[in-house]
């Protein structure tokens, strides 16, 4: 029912309106009365907005419009749209946020200082510098100087780089350079952020405290949308007397960096360790005892290279890397009918890797895919990723290492990418035509003739395609813009494409990217070893984007072959690869390894018996496999490799200790243990075989003795009588294999 407004409500409404009118009148009066006030006093653009930014008011979780702005108070994210912010502050909410008549009573100040309850807490204490800046600006009549204020042209941080001892501090000073030629110290208004807080921490006033971890660290400094970076090299300072022999350019750059930082490298690992490590990294599996026999039979000076070549040529290499790529390319099954397109797409990736199709060609075939899924499987990517905006974001992150998501709605806060850059990139995908096929939910893809343009969501401008950081292209309507994008991808001048891939692959082998995260390449996130990254990038490009050559080059280097055992104080090193960083085996590899060791095979729906977990085409198998879920196999929902969970958890430990599927593998009547018993293999031989299968090495004397003793134990039953010796032997073997599975040596690649 509609009630007539009460007198009180009418009165309140009138008071609010009058207050707003007063603000507007006074504001207008001030502007009219003192036009020069904006020049000499507090600047909205260069003082007020930075104060709000520094106080975090316009952060995503507070009042940023991008985060929906708490309590209806919406500011542009990080102050990128000052005109809008001014309107929100002064004109919105009937002008009650500012009180020109009584500036201290302004809601803005009262909330920010906590005088009235504020869910965001005290951001600007009364009489703090920021508080006073805002107060002064309101007292001035809250003028807007967007048109007249000089523009910030660039930002300088001093010092911009240096060598800092562990535990030391550095004080940064930040200067803004403006369009009128002026230069202003903006240190107190700038934001400071470390790219690795474990290595260095920055305080709001620009003080940087260096931690105990040696390496390269960067402090990003932001002010009004500009970014500057302070680079600090933190040496360990230990003497580096010798480094392993140089096998290729990777060793040159990596060992030079270690020498510069004074981080001694661990020695090269032994052959057994290498055999296991490289098999896991290249083919996602353990070496078999028969392969190890062949490995040891190969002359020592050729052994490692022989093994590398054998692995790179294997189908498992293609399986393993296809597993990696299809997860990022979102090959997921949402409907039972997806099976054909998912299998086709997986197979296309797998076959391309097996045939060593050049990476740029693969990307081109994917980006500019046309036709039906069966006749041209990369079309399946367009079935999975339908929105042009999602397409550009995935392509940028996956193939360029650039995260564009932010730029859809606002200027990228850490980068130079604007909304215009975003929409110009998305314009490449605007001429993707679709025709229905007889398969439900599946279209064929074609190039839809026309001038490719994307509409800027804010300005409404129709933007033609432009590769990131490049001028716009004028493409005729007949040309598929995606082909032009693919051309640009492989262009030697492209600063992202090769870099992104080599960084991603480096991380695959070394646990940490030279740029970390591996898909967040930006000026403000520099690589830990720029020279090495550049050399890898050049090598990869010069090789014709040869992926097998890249992995071969990496694993042949002594840098990759270093022992994981720390030496000479390099335990603290986390980013310079002075030793091999051990990693837990990923879910699929671990499951296959358990299968290999126990002589079992996990059964996967629709797939032939014996299919390995690393060869699963999509995510659907996770549903039926608690093992894969617990160990973090991704659901192929994200373009980010971070979707795969590589951390350890209690659930994982419990699963290995006690889960039914692991027990069933140990007790498999057709498994390895039963075979050992059936063949009556002597205990010492059996133990050696199990150690080789699990660790690619023989047991040492102590291990062998302990294991044999255990195998020959006959425990008592509940009544205290010795159990049947045959049963005891079977159970002892199961215990032995169970304990091997639960060792770190088995669970980790090291």
């Amino acid at each position: 029912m509609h009630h007539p407004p009460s007198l009180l409500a009418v009165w309140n409404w009138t008071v609010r309106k009058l207050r707003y009118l007063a603000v507007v009148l006074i504001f207008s009066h001030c502007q009219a009365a003192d036009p020069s006030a904006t020049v000499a006093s507090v600047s909205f653009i260069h003082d007020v907005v930075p104060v709000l930014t520094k106080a975090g008011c316009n952060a995503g979780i507070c009042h940023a419009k991008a985060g929906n702005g708490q309590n209806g108070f919406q500011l542009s994210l990080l102050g990128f749209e000052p005109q809008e912010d001014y309107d929100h502050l002064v004109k919105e909410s009937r002008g009650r946020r500012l009180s020109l008549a009584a500036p201290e009573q302004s809601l803005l100040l009262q909330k920010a200082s906590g005088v009235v309850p504020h869910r965001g807490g005290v951001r600007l204490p009364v009489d703090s510098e920021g508080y006073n800046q805002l107060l002064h600006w309101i007292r001035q009549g809250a003028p807007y100087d967007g048109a007249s204020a000089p523009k910030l042209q660039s930002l300088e941080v001093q010092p911009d780089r240096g060598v800092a001892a562990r535990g030391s501090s550095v004080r940064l000073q930040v200067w803004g350079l403006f369009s009128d030629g002026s230069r202003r110290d903006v240190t107190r208004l700038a934001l400071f952020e470390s790219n690795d807080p474990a290595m260095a921490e920055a305080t709001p006033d620009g003080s940087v405290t260096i931690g105990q971890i040696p390496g390269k660290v960067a402090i990003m400094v932001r002010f009004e949308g500009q970014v500057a970076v302070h680079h600090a090299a933190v040496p360990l300072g230990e003497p580096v007397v010798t480094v392993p022999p140089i096998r290729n350019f990777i060793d040159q750059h990596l060992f030079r960096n270690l020498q510069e930082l004074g981080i001694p490298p661990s020695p090269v690992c032994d052959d057994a360790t290498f055999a296991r490590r490289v098999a896991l990294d290249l083919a996602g599996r353990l070496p078999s005892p028969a392969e190890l026999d062949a490995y040891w039979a190969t002359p020592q000076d050729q052994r490692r290279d022989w093994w590398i070549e054998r692995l790179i040529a294997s189908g498992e290499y293609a399986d393993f890397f296809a597993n990696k790529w299809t997860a990022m390319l979102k090959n997921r099954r949402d409907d039972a009918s997806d099976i054909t397109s998912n299998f086709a797409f997986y197979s296309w990736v797998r076959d391309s890797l097996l045939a060593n199709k050049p990476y740029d060609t693969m990307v081109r075939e994917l980006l500019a895919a046309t036709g039906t899924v069966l006749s041209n499987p990369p079309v399946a990517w367009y079935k999975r990723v339908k929105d042009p905006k999602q397409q550009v974001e995935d392509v940028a992150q996956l193939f360029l290492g650039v995260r564009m998501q932010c730029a859809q709605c606002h200027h990228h806060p850490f980068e130079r990418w604007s909304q215009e850059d975003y929409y110009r990139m998305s314009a490449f995908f605007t001429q993707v035509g679709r025709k229905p096929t007889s398969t439900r939910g599946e279209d064929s893809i074609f190039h839809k003739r026309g001038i490719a343009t994307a509409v800027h969501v804010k300005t409404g401008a129709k933007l033609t395609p432009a590769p990131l950081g490049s001028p716009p292209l004028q493409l005729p309507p007949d040309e598929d813009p995606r082909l032009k994008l693919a051309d640009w991808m492989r262009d030697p001048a492209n600063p992202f494409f090769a870099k992104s891939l080599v960084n991603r692959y480096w991380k695959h082998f070394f646990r940490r990217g030279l740029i970390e995260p591996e898909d967040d390449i930006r000026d403000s996130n520099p690589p830990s070893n720029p020279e090495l990254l550049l050399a890898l990038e050049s090598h990869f490009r010069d090789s014709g984007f040869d992926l097998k050559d890249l992995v071969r080059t990496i694993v042949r280097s002594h840098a990759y072959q270093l022992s994981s055992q720390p030496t000479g104080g390099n335990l603290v090193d986390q980013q310079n690869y002075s030793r091999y960083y051990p990693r837990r085996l990923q879910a699929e590899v671990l499951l296959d390894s358990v299968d290999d060791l126990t002589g079992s095979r996990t059964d996967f729906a629709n797939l032939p018996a014996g299919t390995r977990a690393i060869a699963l085409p999509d995510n659907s198998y996770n549903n039926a496999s608690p093992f894969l879920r617990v160990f973090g196999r991704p659901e192929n929902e994200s373009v980010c490799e971070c979707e795969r969970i590589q951390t350890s958890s209690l659930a994982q430990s419990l699963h290995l200790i006690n889960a039914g599927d692991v027990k069933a593998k140990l007790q498999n009547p057709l498994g390895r243990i039963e075979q050992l018993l059936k063949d009556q293999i002597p205990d010492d031989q059996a133990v050696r075989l199990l150690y080789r299968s699990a660790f690619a090495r023989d047991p040492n004397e102590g291990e062998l003795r302990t294991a044999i003793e255990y195998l020959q134990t006959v425990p008592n039953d509940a009544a205290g009588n010795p159990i049947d010796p045959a049963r005891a032997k079977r159970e002892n073997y199961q215990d032995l294999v169970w304990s091997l599975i639960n060792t770190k040596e088995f669970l980790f690649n090291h």
Partner: protein
Amino acid sequence: MAERHFRSKSKLSPRLLRWTTLATLLPCLLSSQAVAQSVCLPLPRLLSITPMGGKVGSEIEVTIQSEHAEQIEQLRFHHPGIVATAIQDPATGEQLEDRFRVRIAPDVPPGLYEARVLCRLGISAARIFSVGTLPETIAPGANHSVASASQVQINTIVNATCTARAVDHFRFEAVAGTHYWIQCDARAVDSKLDPVLIVADSEGRDLVASRSGDRIDLTATTDGPMLIKVHDLTFKGGPGYFYRLSIQPMEAETTIPLTPSVQSVTSYSWPPEGLPQEAPLQEQSPEEAAGPSQTISLPCDLAGSFYPAADVDLYEFDGKKGESWWIEVASERLGRPTDAAVLVQRWVSAAEGQGEWTDLSELSDIPSPIKPSSNGYAYDGPPYETGSADALGKVELPEDGRYRLQVRDLFGGTREDRRNRYRLVIRKAQPDFALVGWGMHMELRNGDRAAFSKPLALRPGVTQPVEVAVFRRDGFAGEIELVMEGLPPGVTAQGLKIAAGKTRGVLLVTASGEAPRGIADAQCYGKAVIDGVEVRRPLRMAQMIWPVADAWSEIPVPRLVADLPVSVSPSEPFPLTLEPQESKVYEVVAGQKVAIPMKVTRRAEFSGSTLQLRTMGEGFEQMPRWDLPIQSDQVEAVIDTAALKIPPGDHALAFYGAAVAKYRYNPTDVEGSERVLKEAQEVANAVGQEVEKLNTQASQGTAEAKEAAMKQLQESQKKKEVAQQRVQKMTARHQAAKEKANPRDTAEIVVSQPIRIRVKPAEQP
């Protein structure tokens, strides 16, 4: 308490509550009934032939698998030089229903031929049989590992079938430096298999794989064994997943020829009448993606290819103001996975030697004459795509001057395949038409997504509708008459008129209730007058390659068939016949109503008491639906020519609807199998008694008599075992026959026999 609480809270009246409950449950009840219903009466289908082909001039033994096809009389091929004869069981002397000896005459050209069986229900749907020049073998099977790989010979076709969740392995001896062409035909020969073909080394390590091209072109680097692996893309398998594998050495740099393939339905509209087999002109720069313009003169008939990737072929010609040209490109209809498009441009001069190409027209897909199925929840159109991704259209030249065509493949941005050829034809208007038809289907129940092949295996009393799509070329808009000839006795066909401009027609094939068993190779065509001359164009028939009960679980794949056999089998009459009382032309004056007395003949029980009928026939589709009381013997259908605005002239129409009959499959087999069972039991009993008798004899009398009796006893015991086995077999068969003959609710289209009407002009006052 709970109930009281519910009542006190409920605002619904008890009556409303009952209705609500009923409304909630009704869909469940209906759906359960719907699920229990079968769709379409069974029709015979030949599913597989093993081996799937044979060498010219050879004689081979084949084994067939079929559906709804018992009492097979013949295995028929669509070439008189391929003849099958029955094989008898050497043990019993009975004819083996699933095995035949096939003789391929030396003069049979290599290619693909339709094979069908003639059985109790009549002629089956077709299956492809290949005739080639290589010897053929059948893979032994169980070759699912490197160790169990089957040895195959070079220049031999291996017929094999994939097993679900398995990979077939084959081994061949490679010679270093030899170039091999490894071919795996599957979809091209009616298989369900999407083959994955992998070449591996002798240890099974994959070297190269092909997932979509069905072939691998390989040069061996070493002497010795190599492996070939074959499996389905999604590791499906079973009888429908067959393939033909061959390994043939070839000269390097030789273009691998295209192997014969079944034709997609879309290709019915190609080629235009009178087009020569080979184009007189060729693309001049087939190796260049953006080569120079090729000057042509019109009319033009040219062959080119969409090669290399992102190929754009340019053709220039001089034109005159007012000229009209029809431009047609065929590529998809040649069996290639392409999407041709043509951009027509005109050179517009700005100054001396200056100017630019301006767009005149874009020609792209050929629209489907009949809206095909969207593969949604339920049937919303035939699962036959009759348009094409090829390009066709008319261009009118606005000025004298230079014109240019850009011919490209919208699917060809990244693909490098020389086999993606096209044919470009530019001509003055040559109005014409092409026809394709298939057994008509309609929604028979909720969520009906069935897609069955429907051979013209007629039951007496049926009128089977054939849905016809009309491709109208170069603006032809005239009427088309559908004609079917060469029918077996008791069978007639009536084409419902396809009016001017219409793109869908229906042909009704009727078997009278008394039609005798028979078969004939019919001919069907459309007849029209074009430019004052009567022309006839064949009706190409299409069928589903495999019967699909639910198009969501398996995508229906149709193709064209090369023959059109029509059979009648009195084994099972059609459950319901609706026909006009008199076989005559009913006359009516325009603007008046005419009552058609109709006769109803029932031969089964039905669910429901009425059959809702719609009307087909040009001009009659808008006739209101009406209910036919199924139990009545006679009804009267009233046609209001005024309401329907039927113009004077001769017309034909038919009524149709969906009926649910209590259908029994082959009930006579219950008696037949019972009789055979009894005979078998009698034989077994007799042998049993004899054994008992001999047992007694063997234990009595002289030693000699005992010995003789023992010998006889051993033989009789063997006979007894055989007799008992036969009893077991016949018992199972009888049980199966009874099972199949249980009445089953089966929904089927019921179409009346055509009704002919002559509308006479109203007399002018």
